[in-house]
Protein backbone atom coordinates (compact mmCIF):
# COMPACT_ATOMS: atom_id res chain seq x y z
CA UNK A 1 0.00 0.00 0.00
CA UNK A 2 1.81 3.11 -1.18
CA UNK A 3 0.17 6.24 0.03
CA UNK A 4 1.55 9.76 -0.18
CA UNK A 5 4.03 10.43 2.58
CA UNK A 6 2.32 13.41 4.16
CA UNK A 7 -0.09 13.26 7.04
CA UNK A 8 -1.71 9.96 6.28
CA UNK A 9 -2.14 8.89 9.91
CA UNK A 10 -4.45 11.85 10.33
CA UNK A 11 -7.04 10.16 8.19
CA UNK A 12 -7.33 7.41 10.76
CA UNK A 13 -9.40 7.56 13.88
CA UNK A 14 -8.60 6.53 17.43
CA UNK A 15 -10.57 3.34 16.90
CA UNK A 16 -8.58 2.27 13.84
CA UNK A 17 -5.24 2.26 15.58
CA UNK A 18 -6.82 0.43 18.46
CA UNK A 19 -8.24 -2.30 16.28
CA UNK A 20 -5.13 -2.63 14.14
CA UNK A 21 -2.76 -3.01 17.07
CA UNK A 22 -4.95 -5.38 19.05
CA UNK A 23 -5.49 -7.46 15.93
CA UNK A 24 -1.71 -7.72 15.59
CA UNK A 25 -1.61 -9.27 19.05
CA UNK A 26 -4.60 -11.59 19.17
CA UNK A 27 -5.00 -12.68 15.55
CA UNK A 28 -2.26 -15.13 14.70
CA UNK A 29 -2.04 -16.76 11.32
CA UNK A 30 -0.19 -19.94 10.31
CA UNK A 31 2.62 -17.82 8.82
CA UNK A 32 3.49 -16.60 12.29
CA UNK A 33 3.73 -20.10 13.69
CA UNK A 34 5.85 -21.24 10.76
CA UNK A 35 8.17 -18.27 11.30
CA UNK A 36 8.34 -18.92 15.03
CA UNK A 37 9.03 -22.63 14.57
CA UNK A 38 11.73 -21.92 11.98
CA UNK A 39 13.42 -19.28 14.12
CA UNK A 40 13.12 -21.34 17.29
CA UNK A 41 14.38 -24.49 15.60
CA UNK A 42 17.31 -22.67 14.04
CA UNK A 43 18.18 -21.18 17.42
CA UNK A 44 18.22 -24.59 18.98
CA UNK A 45 20.18 -26.20 16.18
CA UNK A 46 22.67 -23.44 15.34
CA UNK A 47 23.04 -21.63 18.66
CA UNK A 48 22.39 -23.90 21.61
CA UNK A 49 23.53 -27.20 20.16
CA UNK A 50 27.05 -25.96 19.19
CA UNK A 51 27.25 -24.17 22.51
CA UNK A 52 26.54 -27.36 24.43
CA UNK A 53 29.10 -29.10 22.23
CA UNK A 54 31.62 -26.43 23.21
CA UNK A 55 30.71 -26.77 26.89
CA UNK A 56 31.21 -30.51 26.65
CA UNK A 57 34.50 -30.52 24.74
CA UNK A 58 35.87 -27.29 26.17
CA UNK A 59 36.57 -23.88 24.71
CA UNK A 60 39.03 -25.49 22.28
CA UNK A 61 36.00 -26.24 20.10
CA UNK A 62 36.21 -22.59 19.13
CA UNK A 63 39.04 -21.45 16.86
CA UNK A 64 40.52 -19.07 19.41
CA UNK A 65 44.18 -19.62 20.15
CA UNK A 66 47.33 -17.61 20.61
CA UNK A 67 47.63 -14.88 19.31
CA UNK A 68 43.98 -14.67 18.28
CA UNK A 69 42.67 -15.16 21.81
CA UNK A 70 39.53 -13.22 21.03
CA UNK A 71 37.33 -14.18 18.14
CA UNK A 72 33.86 -13.94 16.72
CA UNK A 73 32.29 -14.38 20.16
CA UNK A 74 33.63 -11.04 21.23
CA UNK A 75 32.98 -9.51 17.80
CA UNK A 76 29.37 -10.67 18.03
CA UNK A 77 29.12 -9.36 21.56
CA UNK A 78 30.18 -5.89 20.39
CA UNK A 79 27.88 -6.17 17.40
CA UNK A 80 24.82 -6.99 19.49
CA UNK A 81 25.59 -4.37 22.12
CA UNK A 82 26.00 -1.94 19.24
CA UNK A 83 22.72 -2.95 17.64
CA UNK A 84 21.05 -2.28 20.95
CA UNK A 85 22.18 1.31 20.82
CA UNK A 86 19.68 2.80 18.56
CA UNK A 87 16.44 1.67 20.03
CA UNK A 88 16.36 3.12 23.50
CA UNK A 89 18.90 5.87 22.82
CA UNK A 90 17.16 7.12 19.71
CA UNK A 91 13.81 6.83 21.40
CA UNK A 92 15.01 8.92 24.37
CA UNK A 93 16.57 11.61 22.19
CA UNK A 94 13.51 11.84 19.99
CA UNK A 95 11.24 11.90 23.06
CA UNK A 96 13.14 14.81 24.57
CA UNK A 97 13.22 16.71 21.29
CA UNK A 98 9.49 16.16 20.76
CA UNK A 99 9.90 14.44 17.40
CA UNK A 100 6.49 13.01 16.80
CA UNK A 101 7.56 10.70 13.97
CA UNK A 102 9.25 8.59 16.61
CA UNK A 103 5.94 7.50 18.04
CA UNK A 104 4.90 4.87 15.55
CA UNK A 105 8.20 3.03 15.64
CA UNK A 106 9.82 3.49 18.99
CA UNK A 107 8.21 0.55 20.76
CA UNK A 108 9.69 -2.02 18.42
CA UNK A 109 12.98 -0.12 18.31
CA UNK A 110 13.16 -0.39 22.09
CA UNK A 111 12.32 -4.06 21.92
CA UNK A 112 15.23 -4.40 19.53
CA UNK A 113 17.46 -2.84 22.17
CA UNK A 114 16.25 -5.19 24.82
CA UNK A 115 16.64 -8.38 22.79
CA UNK A 116 19.99 -7.36 21.34
CA UNK A 117 21.14 -6.93 24.91
CA UNK A 118 19.83 -10.35 25.84
CA UNK A 119 21.70 -11.89 22.91
CA UNK A 120 24.85 -9.92 23.82
CA UNK A 121 24.65 -11.10 27.42
CA UNK A 122 24.24 -14.68 26.19
CA UNK A 123 27.37 -14.17 24.09
CA UNK A 124 29.32 -13.27 27.21
CA UNK A 125 28.31 -16.66 28.58
CA UNK A 126 29.44 -18.37 25.40
CA UNK A 127 32.71 -16.44 25.33
CA UNK A 128 33.84 -17.07 28.88
CA UNK A 129 33.96 -20.82 28.32
CA UNK A 130 32.95 -21.73 31.85
CA UNK A 131 29.69 -19.81 32.30
CA UNK A 132 28.92 -21.50 35.61
CA UNK A 133 31.49 -19.16 37.19
CA UNK A 134 29.99 -16.02 35.65
CA UNK A 135 28.66 -14.86 39.01
CA UNK A 136 32.25 -14.34 40.12
CA UNK A 137 32.18 -11.13 38.11
CA UNK A 138 29.45 -9.74 40.34
CA UNK A 139 30.47 -8.09 43.60
CA UNK A 140 28.73 -10.09 46.29
CA UNK A 141 29.95 -11.13 49.74
CA UNK A 142 31.27 -14.68 49.56
CA UNK A 143 33.34 -17.12 51.56
CA UNK A 144 36.11 -17.16 48.98
CA UNK A 145 36.89 -13.54 49.80
CA UNK A 146 36.73 -13.07 46.05
CA UNK A 147 36.13 -9.46 45.07
CA UNK A 148 36.31 -8.14 41.53
CA UNK A 149 38.94 -5.64 40.47
CA UNK A 150 37.08 -2.44 39.73
CA UNK A 151 40.01 -1.06 37.77
CA UNK A 152 39.38 -3.50 34.96
CA UNK A 153 37.30 -2.40 31.96
CA UNK A 154 35.69 -5.84 32.10
CA UNK A 155 34.22 -4.88 35.47
CA UNK A 156 33.04 -1.58 33.98
CA UNK A 157 31.31 -3.75 31.39
CA UNK A 158 29.52 -5.82 34.01
CA UNK A 159 28.23 -2.71 35.77
CA UNK A 160 27.35 -0.82 32.59
CA UNK A 161 25.57 -3.67 30.84
CA UNK A 162 23.64 -4.71 33.95
CA UNK A 163 22.49 -1.09 34.33
CA UNK A 164 21.67 -0.84 30.64
CA UNK A 165 19.56 -4.00 30.58
CA UNK A 166 17.69 -2.85 33.70
CA UNK A 167 17.18 0.64 32.29
CA UNK A 168 16.00 -0.50 28.85
CA UNK A 169 13.59 -3.04 30.33
CA UNK A 170 12.08 -0.42 32.61
CA UNK A 171 11.91 2.15 29.84
CA UNK A 172 10.03 -0.06 27.39
CA UNK A 173 7.73 -1.29 30.16
CA UNK A 174 6.86 2.17 31.50
CA UNK A 175 6.04 3.40 28.03
CA UNK A 176 3.76 0.41 27.48
CA UNK A 177 1.63 0.62 30.64
CA UNK A 178 -1.22 2.66 29.06
CA UNK A 179 -1.26 0.32 26.08
CA UNK A 180 -1.37 -2.76 28.28
CA UNK A 181 -4.43 -1.20 29.91
CA UNK A 182 -6.04 -0.66 26.53
CA UNK A 183 -5.37 -4.26 25.50
CA UNK A 184 -6.60 -5.50 28.89
CA UNK A 185 -10.06 -4.07 28.19
CA UNK A 186 -10.32 -5.87 24.86
CA UNK A 187 -9.08 -9.33 25.77
CA UNK A 188 -10.39 -12.25 27.79
CA UNK A 189 -9.06 -15.37 29.48
CA UNK A 190 -5.37 -15.75 30.22
CA UNK A 191 -4.52 -12.72 28.12
CA UNK A 192 -6.81 -10.58 30.23
CA UNK A 193 -5.14 -11.83 33.42
CA UNK A 194 -1.71 -11.15 31.96
CA UNK A 195 -2.55 -7.62 30.80
CA UNK A 196 -4.35 -6.84 34.05
CA UNK A 197 -1.14 -7.64 35.90
CA UNK A 198 1.06 -5.85 33.37
CA UNK A 199 -1.06 -2.69 33.31
CA UNK A 200 -0.98 -2.43 37.13
CA UNK A 201 -4.52 -1.08 37.24
CA UNK A 202 -3.85 1.89 34.96
CA UNK A 203 -6.94 4.01 34.30
CA UNK A 204 -5.53 6.93 32.33
CA UNK A 205 -6.51 9.61 34.82
CA UNK A 206 -5.03 13.08 34.54
CA UNK A 207 -2.82 12.36 37.52
CA UNK A 208 -1.48 9.10 36.10
CA UNK A 209 -0.66 10.74 32.76
CA UNK A 210 1.13 13.55 34.54
CA UNK A 211 3.22 11.18 36.64
CA UNK A 212 3.99 8.94 33.69
CA UNK A 213 5.15 11.90 31.64
CA UNK A 214 7.61 13.02 34.29
CA UNK A 215 8.88 9.56 35.14
CA UNK A 216 9.36 8.83 31.46
CA UNK A 217 11.21 12.08 30.88
CA UNK A 218 13.55 11.48 33.81
CA UNK A 219 14.24 7.97 32.58
CA UNK A 220 15.04 9.31 29.12
CA UNK A 221 17.44 11.84 30.60
CA UNK A 222 19.17 9.11 32.62
CA UNK A 223 19.35 6.60 29.79
CA UNK A 224 20.99 8.82 27.15
CA UNK A 225 24.30 9.24 29.02
CA UNK A 226 24.04 5.60 30.08
CA UNK A 227 23.85 4.34 26.50
CA UNK A 228 26.78 6.50 25.49
CA UNK A 229 28.80 5.21 28.43
CA UNK A 230 28.01 1.57 27.68
CA UNK A 231 29.65 1.47 24.30
CA UNK A 232 32.50 3.71 25.39
CA UNK A 233 33.21 1.17 28.09
CA UNK A 234 33.03 -1.69 25.62
CA UNK A 235 35.61 0.16 23.52
CA UNK A 236 37.89 0.49 26.55
CA UNK A 237 38.02 -3.29 26.80
CA UNK A 238 40.28 -2.88 23.77
CA UNK A 239 41.62 0.65 23.93
CA UNK A 240 43.03 0.17 27.44
CA UNK A 241 45.26 -2.63 26.23
CA UNK A 242 48.61 -1.75 24.68
CA UNK A 243 48.04 -3.65 21.46
CA UNK A 244 48.96 -1.60 18.36
CA UNK A 245 45.90 -0.24 16.53
CA UNK A 246 43.69 -0.89 19.58
CA UNK A 247 45.40 1.57 21.91
CA UNK A 248 43.69 4.67 20.53
CA UNK A 249 41.80 7.50 22.19
CA UNK A 250 39.36 7.70 19.28
CA UNK A 251 37.94 4.31 20.23
CA UNK A 252 35.14 5.46 22.53
CA UNK A 253 33.48 7.81 20.02
CA UNK A 254 34.31 5.35 17.25
CA UNK A 255 32.38 2.61 19.01
CA UNK A 256 29.48 4.84 20.02
CA UNK A 257 28.99 6.18 16.50
CA UNK A 258 29.38 2.70 15.02
CA UNK A 259 26.82 1.39 17.50
CA UNK A 260 24.22 4.02 16.70
CA UNK A 261 24.94 3.55 13.01
CA UNK A 262 24.38 -0.19 13.01
CA UNK A 263 21.44 0.16 15.41
CA UNK A 264 19.68 2.64 13.15
CA UNK A 265 20.24 0.35 10.19
CA UNK A 266 18.78 -2.45 12.31
CA UNK A 267 15.69 -0.33 12.99
CA UNK A 268 15.20 0.14 9.24
CA UNK A 269 15.34 -3.64 8.75
CA UNK A 270 12.94 -4.34 11.60
CA UNK A 271 10.53 -1.59 10.50
CA UNK A 272 10.41 -3.01 7.01
CA UNK A 273 9.59 -6.49 8.26
CA UNK A 274 7.07 -5.27 10.82
CA UNK A 275 5.35 -3.05 8.30
CA UNK A 276 4.93 -5.87 5.80
CA UNK A 277 4.09 -8.69 8.15
CA UNK A 278 1.81 -7.01 10.68
CA UNK A 279 -0.14 -4.74 8.36
CA UNK A 280 1.18 -1.50 9.85
CA UNK A 281 1.42 0.23 6.45
CA UNK A 282 -0.54 3.24 7.65
CA UNK A 283 1.59 3.81 10.71
CA UNK A 284 5.12 3.12 9.50
CA UNK A 285 5.40 5.22 6.39
CA UNK A 286 7.80 6.69 3.89
CA UNK A 287 8.23 9.56 6.30
CA UNK A 288 9.88 7.23 8.81
CA UNK A 289 12.17 5.71 6.21
CA UNK A 290 13.06 9.16 4.94
CA UNK A 291 13.96 10.40 8.42
CA UNK A 292 15.83 7.24 9.34
CA UNK A 293 17.67 7.48 6.03
CA UNK A 294 18.83 11.02 6.78
CA UNK A 295 20.01 9.90 10.19
CA UNK A 296 21.86 6.95 8.67
CA UNK A 297 23.53 9.21 6.15
CA UNK A 298 24.84 11.56 8.83
CA UNK A 299 26.06 8.63 10.92
CA UNK A 300 27.73 7.09 7.90
CA UNK A 301 29.66 10.31 7.25
CA UNK A 302 30.77 10.57 10.88
CA UNK A 303 31.74 6.90 10.89
CA UNK A 304 33.79 7.34 7.70
CA UNK A 305 35.52 10.36 9.18
CA UNK A 306 36.45 8.49 12.35
CA UNK A 307 37.82 5.64 10.27
CA UNK A 308 40.00 8.14 8.48
CA UNK A 309 41.19 9.53 11.80
CA UNK A 310 42.03 6.02 12.98
CA UNK A 311 44.19 5.36 9.93
CA UNK A 312 45.80 8.79 10.14
CA UNK A 313 46.67 8.43 13.83
CA UNK A 314 48.29 5.07 13.20
CA UNK A 315 50.34 6.48 10.32
CA UNK A 316 51.22 9.68 12.18
CA UNK A 317 52.50 7.76 15.22
CA UNK A 318 55.55 6.87 13.15
CA UNK A 319 56.22 3.68 15.09
CA UNK A 320 57.00 0.46 13.28
CA UNK A 321 54.43 -1.66 15.14
CA UNK A 322 51.60 0.75 14.23
CA UNK A 323 52.83 0.81 10.61
CA UNK A 324 52.81 -2.96 10.50
CA UNK A 325 49.30 -3.14 12.00
CA UNK A 326 48.08 -0.52 9.55
CA UNK A 327 49.66 -2.23 6.57
CA UNK A 328 48.22 -5.56 7.69
CA UNK A 329 44.75 -4.10 8.07
CA UNK A 330 44.71 -2.48 4.62
CA UNK A 331 46.60 -5.06 2.56
CA UNK A 332 47.05 -8.20 4.70
CA UNK A 333 45.21 -11.48 5.16
CA UNK A 334 41.91 -9.85 6.14
CA UNK A 335 42.14 -6.90 3.73
CA UNK A 336 39.27 -8.10 1.52
CA UNK A 337 37.02 -7.87 4.59
CA UNK A 338 38.29 -4.37 5.25
CA UNK A 339 37.44 -3.16 1.76
CA UNK A 340 34.08 -4.91 1.92
CA UNK A 341 33.38 -2.95 5.10
CA UNK A 342 34.39 0.32 3.45
CA UNK A 343 32.10 -0.35 0.48
CA UNK A 344 29.12 -1.38 2.65
CA UNK A 345 29.43 1.26 5.36
CA UNK A 346 31.05 4.25 3.69
CA UNK A 347 30.43 4.07 -0.07
CA UNK A 348 26.98 2.53 -0.55
CA UNK A 349 25.28 4.74 2.07
CA UNK A 350 26.07 7.72 -0.16
CA UNK A 351 23.05 6.59 -2.16
CA UNK A 352 20.94 8.03 0.64
CA UNK A 353 21.71 11.53 -0.58
CA UNK A 354 18.86 10.83 -2.97
CA UNK A 355 15.39 11.39 -1.53
CA UNK A 356 14.01 8.86 -3.95
CA UNK A 357 16.30 6.20 -2.53
CA UNK A 358 15.43 7.06 1.08
CA UNK A 359 11.70 6.75 0.41
CA UNK A 360 11.96 3.43 -1.44
CA UNK A 361 11.34 0.55 0.92
CA UNK A 362 13.15 -2.38 -0.68
CA UNK A 363 16.40 -0.52 -1.52
CA UNK A 364 16.48 0.82 2.05
CA UNK A 365 16.02 -2.71 3.38
CA UNK A 366 18.89 -4.03 1.27
CA UNK A 367 21.14 -1.14 2.24
CA UNK A 368 20.32 -1.51 5.94
CA UNK A 369 21.27 -5.19 5.82
CA UNK A 370 24.46 -4.35 3.92
CA UNK A 371 25.39 -1.76 6.54
CA UNK A 372 24.96 -4.29 9.32
CA UNK A 373 27.06 -6.86 7.48
CA UNK A 374 29.71 -4.17 7.15
CA UNK A 375 29.41 -3.26 10.81
CA UNK A 376 29.76 -6.89 11.87
CA UNK A 377 32.88 -7.07 9.74
CA UNK A 378 34.20 -3.94 11.43
CA UNK A 379 33.89 -5.54 14.86
CA UNK A 380 35.54 -8.71 13.61
CA UNK A 381 38.42 -6.76 12.07
CA UNK A 382 39.04 -4.70 15.19
CA UNK A 383 39.80 -7.94 16.99
CA UNK A 384 41.29 -10.11 14.26
CA UNK A 385 43.68 -7.67 12.56
CA UNK A 386 45.11 -6.19 15.73
CA UNK A 387 45.71 -9.43 17.63
CA UNK A 388 47.38 -10.96 14.56
CA UNK A 389 50.12 -8.33 14.48
CA UNK A 390 51.34 -7.59 17.98
CA UNK A 391 54.91 -6.30 18.17
CA UNK A 392 57.34 -9.19 17.63
CA UNK A 393 57.01 -11.15 14.38
CA UNK A 394 57.29 -14.49 16.19
CA UNK A 395 54.03 -13.63 17.96
CA UNK A 396 52.19 -13.10 14.70
CA UNK A 397 49.48 -15.39 13.46
CA UNK A 398 46.03 -15.50 11.96
CA UNK A 399 42.68 -16.34 13.42
CA UNK A 400 39.95 -18.13 11.50
CA UNK A 401 36.63 -18.93 13.19
CA UNK A 402 35.81 -22.61 13.68
CA UNK A 403 32.50 -24.12 12.46
CA UNK A 404 31.21 -23.93 16.04
CA UNK A 405 31.81 -20.19 16.14
CA UNK A 406 30.28 -19.58 12.72
CA UNK A 407 27.23 -21.63 13.63
CA UNK A 408 26.74 -19.77 16.90
CA UNK A 409 27.11 -16.48 15.06
CA UNK A 410 24.35 -17.39 12.61
CA UNK A 411 22.27 -18.90 15.41
CA UNK A 412 22.37 -15.64 17.36
CA UNK A 413 20.34 -13.98 14.61
CA UNK A 414 17.76 -16.74 14.93
CA UNK A 415 17.75 -16.25 18.70
CA UNK A 416 17.08 -12.54 18.23
CA UNK A 417 14.31 -13.26 15.73
CA UNK A 418 12.68 -15.76 18.09
CA UNK A 419 12.66 -13.27 20.95
CA UNK A 420 11.26 -10.59 18.68
CA UNK A 421 8.50 -12.87 17.39
CA UNK A 422 7.44 -13.57 20.96
CA UNK A 423 7.53 -9.84 21.69
CA UNK A 424 5.11 -8.83 18.91
CA UNK A 425 2.47 -11.12 20.38
CA UNK A 426 2.78 -9.75 23.91
CA UNK A 427 3.57 -6.07 23.56
CA UNK A 428 1.51 -3.73 21.40
CA UNK A 429 4.32 -3.22 18.89
CA UNK A 430 3.08 0.20 17.87
CA UNK A 431 2.49 2.59 20.74
CA UNK A 432 -1.25 3.21 20.58
CA UNK A 433 -1.57 6.20 22.84
CA UNK A 434 1.32 8.00 21.26
CA UNK A 435 0.11 7.44 17.73
CA UNK A 436 -3.26 8.76 18.94
CA UNK A 437 -1.44 11.82 20.21
CA UNK A 438 -0.08 12.52 16.73
CA UNK A 439 -3.60 12.36 15.30
CA UNK A 440 -5.85 15.38 15.34
CA UNK A 441 -7.69 15.48 18.67
CA UNK A 442 -11.46 15.26 18.35
CA UNK A 443 -12.89 18.75 18.03
CA UNK A 444 -15.87 20.22 19.77
CA UNK A 445 -18.75 20.14 17.30
CA UNK A 446 -22.48 20.66 17.85
CA UNK A 447 -23.34 17.59 15.79
CA UNK A 448 -20.75 15.10 16.88
CA UNK A 449 -19.84 12.54 14.22
CA UNK A 450 -20.37 8.90 14.97
CA UNK A 451 -17.94 7.31 17.39
CA UNK A 452 -14.96 5.81 15.65
CA UNK A 453 -14.33 8.66 13.24
CA UNK A 454 -13.44 11.51 15.57
CA UNK A 455 -11.03 13.07 13.10
Amino acid at each position, binding site marked *: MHRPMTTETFKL*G*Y*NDIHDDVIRSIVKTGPKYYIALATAGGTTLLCFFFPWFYQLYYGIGAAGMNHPGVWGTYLASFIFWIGLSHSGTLLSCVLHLTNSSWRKAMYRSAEAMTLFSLVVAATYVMVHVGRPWFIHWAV*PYPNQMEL*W*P*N*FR*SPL*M*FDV*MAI*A*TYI*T*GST*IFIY*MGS*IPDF*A*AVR*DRTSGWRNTMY*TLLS*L*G*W*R*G*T*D*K*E*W*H*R*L*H*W*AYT*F*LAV*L*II*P*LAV*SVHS*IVSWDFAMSIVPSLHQTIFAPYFVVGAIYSGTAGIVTVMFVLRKSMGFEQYITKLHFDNLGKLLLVLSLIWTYINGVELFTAWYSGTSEEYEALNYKLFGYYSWLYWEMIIFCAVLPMLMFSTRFRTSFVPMLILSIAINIGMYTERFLIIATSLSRQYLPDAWGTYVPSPVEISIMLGSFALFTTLFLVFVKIFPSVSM*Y*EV*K*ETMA*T*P*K*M*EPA*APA*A*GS*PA
Partner: protein
Amino acid sequence: MTSNVVGLFHDPESALTAAGQLKGAGFESLEIMSPVPIHGVEEVLGKKKSVIKNFTFMGALIGGISGFALAAGTAIAWPHPVGGRPIITMPPFLIITYELTILFGILATVLGFFISSRLPAFRNRVYVPESAVDKFVVTAPCDDAEHFKRAEAILNDAGAEQVREIGGSDL
Protein backbone atom coordinates in the same frame (compact mmCIF):
# COMPACT_ATOMS: atom_id res chain seq x y z
CA MET B 1 -24.33 5.98 50.16
CA THR B 2 -21.83 7.56 47.86
CA SER B 3 -21.82 6.97 44.16
CA ASN B 4 -19.80 8.39 41.32
CA VAL B 5 -21.05 10.41 38.43
CA VAL B 6 -19.32 9.61 35.17
CA GLY B 7 -19.68 11.67 32.02
CA LEU B 8 -18.36 10.48 28.66
CA PHE B 9 -17.26 13.12 26.20
CA HIS B 10 -16.31 12.97 22.59
CA ASP B 11 -13.60 15.58 22.72
CA PRO B 12 -11.13 16.87 25.32
CA GLU B 13 -12.31 20.50 25.22
CA SER B 14 -15.87 19.78 26.38
CA ALA B 15 -14.56 17.34 29.00
CA LEU B 16 -12.35 20.09 30.37
CA THR B 17 -15.19 22.60 30.30
CA ALA B 18 -17.43 20.16 32.19
CA ALA B 19 -14.70 19.50 34.73
CA GLY B 20 -14.27 23.24 35.26
CA GLN B 21 -18.00 23.71 35.79
CA LEU B 22 -18.23 20.78 38.21
CA LYS B 23 -15.35 22.21 40.16
CA GLY B 24 -17.05 25.61 40.16
CA ALA B 25 -20.23 23.97 41.50
CA GLY B 26 -18.31 22.66 44.48
CA PHE B 27 -17.55 19.08 43.45
CA GLU B 28 -14.26 17.73 44.69
CA SER B 29 -11.84 14.93 43.82
CA LEU B 30 -12.54 15.27 40.10
CA GLU B 31 -10.76 12.95 37.76
CA ILE B 32 -10.42 13.07 33.99
CA MET B 33 -9.70 9.78 32.24
CA SER B 34 -8.48 9.98 28.69
CA PRO B 35 -6.95 7.78 25.99
CA VAL B 36 -4.12 10.28 25.50
CA PRO B 37 -2.58 12.83 27.85
CA ILE B 38 -4.57 16.05 27.39
CA HIS B 39 -3.21 19.54 27.57
CA GLY B 40 -4.76 22.16 29.75
CA VAL B 41 -5.83 19.90 32.63
CA GLU B 42 -3.75 21.90 35.07
CA GLU B 43 -5.56 25.15 34.19
CA VAL B 44 -8.85 23.50 35.14
CA LEU B 45 -8.04 21.15 38.00
CA GLY B 46 -5.13 23.04 39.51
CA LYS B 47 -1.40 22.76 39.24
CA LYS B 48 0.11 19.32 39.70
CA LYS B 49 3.33 18.74 41.49
CA SER B 50 5.10 15.45 41.28
CA VAL B 51 7.52 14.13 43.85
CA ILE B 52 9.24 11.95 41.25
CA LYS B 53 12.11 14.37 40.77
CA ASN B 54 13.00 14.09 44.46
CA PHE B 55 13.09 10.32 44.14
CA THR B 56 15.27 10.51 41.05
CA PHE B 57 17.68 12.91 42.70
CA MET B 58 17.94 10.99 45.94
CA GLY B 59 18.31 7.69 44.10
CA ALA B 60 21.07 9.07 41.92
CA LEU B 61 22.83 10.54 44.96
CA ILE B 62 22.63 7.32 46.95
CA GLY B 63 23.73 5.37 43.87
CA GLY B 64 26.74 7.58 43.36
CA ILE B 65 27.83 7.32 46.97
CA SER B 66 27.34 3.57 47.10
CA GLY B 67 29.09 3.08 43.77
CA PHE B 68 32.16 4.87 44.96
CA ALA B 69 31.97 3.17 48.35
CA LEU B 70 31.76 -0.24 46.65
CA ALA B 71 34.83 0.33 44.49
CA ALA B 72 36.88 2.16 47.10
CA GLY B 73 35.82 -0.20 49.89
CA THR B 74 36.85 -3.22 47.84
CA ALA B 75 40.20 -1.63 47.06
CA ILE B 76 40.84 -0.83 50.73
CA ALA B 77 39.70 -4.20 52.07
CA TRP B 78 41.74 -6.13 49.50
CA PRO B 79 44.66 -3.82 48.66
CA HIS B 80 46.24 -4.47 45.30
CA PRO B 81 49.25 -2.16 44.96
CA VAL B 82 50.31 -1.57 41.37
CA GLY B 83 53.62 0.20 40.80
CA GLY B 84 53.22 2.62 43.68
CA ARG B 85 49.94 3.99 42.30
CA PRO B 86 47.24 5.05 44.75
CA ILE B 87 45.00 2.33 46.17
CA ILE B 88 41.90 4.43 45.53
CA THR B 89 42.32 5.17 41.82
CA MET B 90 39.90 7.88 40.85
CA PRO B 91 39.40 7.51 37.06
CA PRO B 92 38.22 3.87 37.01
CA PHE B 93 36.27 4.24 40.25
CA LEU B 94 34.42 7.24 38.88
CA ILE B 95 33.12 5.02 36.08
CA ILE B 96 31.65 2.59 38.61
CA THR B 97 30.23 5.60 40.46
CA TYR B 98 28.70 6.89 37.24
CA GLU B 99 27.03 3.60 36.36
CA LEU B 100 25.56 3.06 39.81
CA THR B 101 24.36 6.67 39.91
CA ILE B 102 22.30 5.99 36.82
CA LEU B 103 21.14 2.54 37.98
CA PHE B 104 19.87 3.79 41.32
CA GLY B 105 18.44 6.90 39.67
CA ILE B 106 16.40 4.73 37.31
CA LEU B 107 15.16 2.41 40.07
CA ALA B 108 14.24 5.33 42.31
CA THR B 109 12.35 7.01 39.45
CA VAL B 110 10.25 3.88 39.03
CA LEU B 111 9.62 3.74 42.75
CA GLY B 112 8.65 7.41 42.72
CA PHE B 113 6.28 6.82 39.82
CA PHE B 114 4.57 3.94 41.61
CA ILE B 115 4.20 5.83 44.86
CA SER B 116 3.03 9.12 43.40
CA SER B 117 0.58 7.62 40.90
CA ARG B 118 -0.74 5.05 43.42
CA LEU B 119 0.06 2.12 41.18
CA PRO B 120 -0.09 -0.83 41.16
CA ALA B 121 -3.74 -0.82 42.19
CA PHE B 122 -5.70 -3.97 41.54
CA ARG B 123 -8.70 -3.05 43.67
CA ASN B 124 -11.83 -1.91 41.86
CA ARG B 125 -11.94 1.76 41.12
CA VAL B 126 -14.11 3.99 38.99
CA TYR B 127 -13.20 3.10 35.44
CA VAL B 128 -14.76 3.34 32.02
CA PRO B 129 -13.14 1.06 29.43
CA GLU B 130 -14.12 3.46 26.62
CA SER B 131 -11.68 5.97 28.05
CA ALA B 132 -8.82 3.79 26.84
CA VAL B 133 -10.13 3.91 23.28
CA ASP B 134 -11.53 7.29 22.27
CA LYS B 135 -13.66 8.81 25.04
CA PHE B 136 -12.73 11.58 27.44
CA VAL B 137 -14.30 10.89 30.79
CA VAL B 138 -15.01 13.18 33.73
CA THR B 139 -15.82 11.60 37.04
CA ALA B 140 -16.60 12.88 40.53
CA PRO B 141 -17.91 11.29 43.72
CA CYS B 142 -21.43 12.33 44.80
CA ASP B 143 -22.86 12.15 48.31
CA ASP B 144 -26.55 11.59 47.50
CA ALA B 145 -29.16 11.48 44.73
CA GLU B 146 -29.72 15.23 44.74
CA HIS B 147 -25.99 15.78 44.36
CA PHE B 148 -25.90 13.33 41.47
CA LYS B 149 -28.78 15.09 39.68
CA ARG B 150 -26.89 18.38 39.80
CA ALA B 151 -23.73 16.83 38.43
CA GLU B 152 -25.70 15.05 35.71
CA ALA B 153 -27.25 18.33 34.62
CA ILE B 154 -23.87 20.05 34.46
CA LEU B 155 -22.35 17.22 32.44
CA ASN B 156 -25.28 17.09 30.01
CA ASP B 157 -25.14 20.86 29.53
CA ALA B 158 -21.46 20.61 28.69
CA GLY B 159 -22.28 18.15 25.94
CA ALA B 160 -21.73 14.73 27.48
CA GLU B 161 -22.62 11.88 25.15
CA GLN B 162 -23.59 9.73 28.08
CA VAL B 163 -23.80 10.08 31.84
CA ARG B 164 -23.50 7.02 34.06
CA GLU B 165 -23.69 6.30 37.72
CA ILE B 166 -21.09 3.98 39.14
CA GLY B 167 -22.17 3.25 42.70
CA GLY B 168 -20.14 2.30 45.70
CA SER B 169 -21.62 -1.19 45.63
CA ASP B 170 -20.78 -1.71 41.95
CA LEU B 171 -17.11 -1.25 42.71
